[in-house]
């Protein structure tokens, strides 16, 4: 029973793409406003607020990355941003996320993919506890011997070696470190772990937890990080600290 209609601002310099996307999203129950460039976006945001901004990277004048950074510094800093990039590689994704984007989508994209991402980002930002709602540029989360790089989505040990995480492992770990010292049952973990690949094949939470323990070099019998709470679920028992150490 949701009476609130999510309002999305689409910033893209291609009129047709804008209109096609707008038509599709409106048809699927969103309210859409369009802007062809950064100037129009600023004008609109001066007087209005939206629930999410879809921002193209390649724009005339200030590009999407500049605009995204600007948004993060201003009064719309908590509005989620979904970037549209032309490049399908890690570098672009990382730059986008470092500029403060919440997610990214590569052009050419399908409209339903965009819709799914928009919904996932909205769900995720609403579910996060207030202290972690804003994705800061280059945010690092530190706990125990580890640092979690939230843009590159990997762990770094205290010697600086990168320990990679699979998508599911990262999302589960992210749920744990976002909710430290709280007992989470399997259903909660499963729900929170579903990210943008929500339709993917689901691994059992227990298997994922055991893999995560392996990654963290956590002893399964006497775990220091993720503890098992009998008949309830799991708890992340390390204090988590937000650092901005990345550079």
């Amino acid at each position, binding site marked *: 029973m949701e009476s609130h209609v999510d309002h999305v601002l689409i910033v893209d310099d291609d009129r047709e793409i804008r209109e*096609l996307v707008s038509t599709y999203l409106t048809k699927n129950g969103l309210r859409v406003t369009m802007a062809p460039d950064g100037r129009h976006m600023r004008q609109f945001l001066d007087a209005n607020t939206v629930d999410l901004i879809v921002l193209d990277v390649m724009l005339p004048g200030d590009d999407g990355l500049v605009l995204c950074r600007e948004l993060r510094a201003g009064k719309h800093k908590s509005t989620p941003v979904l970037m549209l990039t032309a490049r*399908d590689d890690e*570098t672009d994704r990382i730059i986008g996320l470092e500029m403060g984007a919440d997610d990214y989508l590569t052009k*050419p994209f399908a*409209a*339903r993919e965009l819709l799914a991402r928009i919904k996932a980002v909205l769900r995720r930002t609403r579910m996060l506890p207030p202290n972690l709602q804003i994705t800061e540029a280059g945010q690092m989360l530190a706990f125990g011997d580890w640092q979690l790089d939230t843009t590159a989505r990997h762990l770094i040990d205290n010697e600086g070696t*990168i*320990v990679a995480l699979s998508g599911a492992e990262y999302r589960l770990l992210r749920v744990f470190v976002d909710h430290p010292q709280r007992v989470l049952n399997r259903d909660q973990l499963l729900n929170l772990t579903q990210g943008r690949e929500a339709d*993917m094949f689901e691994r059992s939470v227990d298997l994922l937890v055991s893999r995560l323990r392996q*990654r963290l070099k956590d002893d399964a019998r006497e775990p220091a990080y993720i503890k098992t709470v009998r008949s309830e679920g799991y708890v992340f028992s390390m204090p988590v600290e937000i650092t901005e150490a990345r550079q």
Partner: protein
Amino acid sequence: MSTRRWRWPHTMGSRLFLILLAGMIVAHLMSFAVLFSERYMSARQVMLGTLETDVATSVAILDRIPAAERPQWLPRVNRGNYQYILGPGSPGVPEMTQRGRDIAERIMEATGTHYPVTVQSIPGDGKQLQAHLTLSDGSPLTIDVHPRMTPIAEWLPYVLVLQLLLLILCCWFAVRLSIRPLVALADAADALNPNTRSQPLDEHGPTELAQAARAFNAMRDRIAHFVEERVQILAAISHDLQTPITRMKLRAEMAEDSEEKRKLVSDLAEIQTLVREGLAYARSTGGDSEEASRIDLGSFVESLVYDYQDTGKDVTIGENAGGAIVTRRNALRRVLTNLIDNAIKYGGGAAEVGVRRERDTVVISIMDRGPGIPEDKLEAVLQPFVRLEGSRNRETGGTGLGLAIAHQLAAAIGGSLTLRNREGGGLAADIRLG
């Protein structure tokens, strides 16, 4: 005709060395010979001159003193080249060499006016002469002549050897000096890879070498420029296609469901893949700006495999001898995903990943149990847009760039990619790092 002909040594260096050394040794010997004969002539002149006056004096002295005192005087008048014998001497023959005749003539000139004299050569080494004359008291006197040069100084052979060594050393040094830049040029040409920025050749040194180095560097720059241009064109085309493809995709999605729409969407997906791969290939040759970082290889490969498993793909991990390595991880991930995708697409739907260590090298293998690749095509398929006969098929949607990208990127991160057919069927792709 002998079948074994003299053959030049293979290297330019040894040829030059031989020519120089032979020439210098011949020249050296010639000047030595000239010097030697000149010395011989003058020495002979001196010898003949002294022989004439000396013999005249000595014979006059021996003639004057009483016969009994003569033997005591002999040591005083004997010389290195000739001795006096109080007696008839040995029998000889009148034939003699030119030198012998010269000497005989001198002796005759010195003594012949006062005493009857005959000069004969003694058979043997052909050099010994004896002059027989009769003194005024009637007793015979023989001048025994052993014409010979003053012996060569003992140190002379050492000097000769030393000079020879000096010659060899100088030749070797000169050859090395002239060959080295050539070798450097060949090495640079061998190492020429437009994808990686290598050091230009040193443009200093002798004029010809500097000119060659400049020409080479210019050629290298031109090649790099061509490659860059090719990559940029590919990137520009791919990039500019993205906006129209996005529009088409969106428009197709809006259309009513129909067979036509399904086909359109599938065609668009194919174009999109081609554009994306084209861009990726263009970038893989252009050298990315990604920094290398130290990664735990075990978890790197594992997390990648798990990502495949989580999307329902049959990808497994076998031996996983991890450890930390320093590499450009995004490039490495791209290499691995391309190869795993390839194995899934063409290799029977399943892939197995293994990591092992061979001494200092880490080998990551991606293996399948598909039909493999004919041995003579194993290298060709690493080239862009090269596909195997029969795999150019719409269903699989291959662009012919996946392996080329993996190959380029593997080289860009200082590794290598090789394909081989497995025992028992299937293809294995080995990435060697470090």
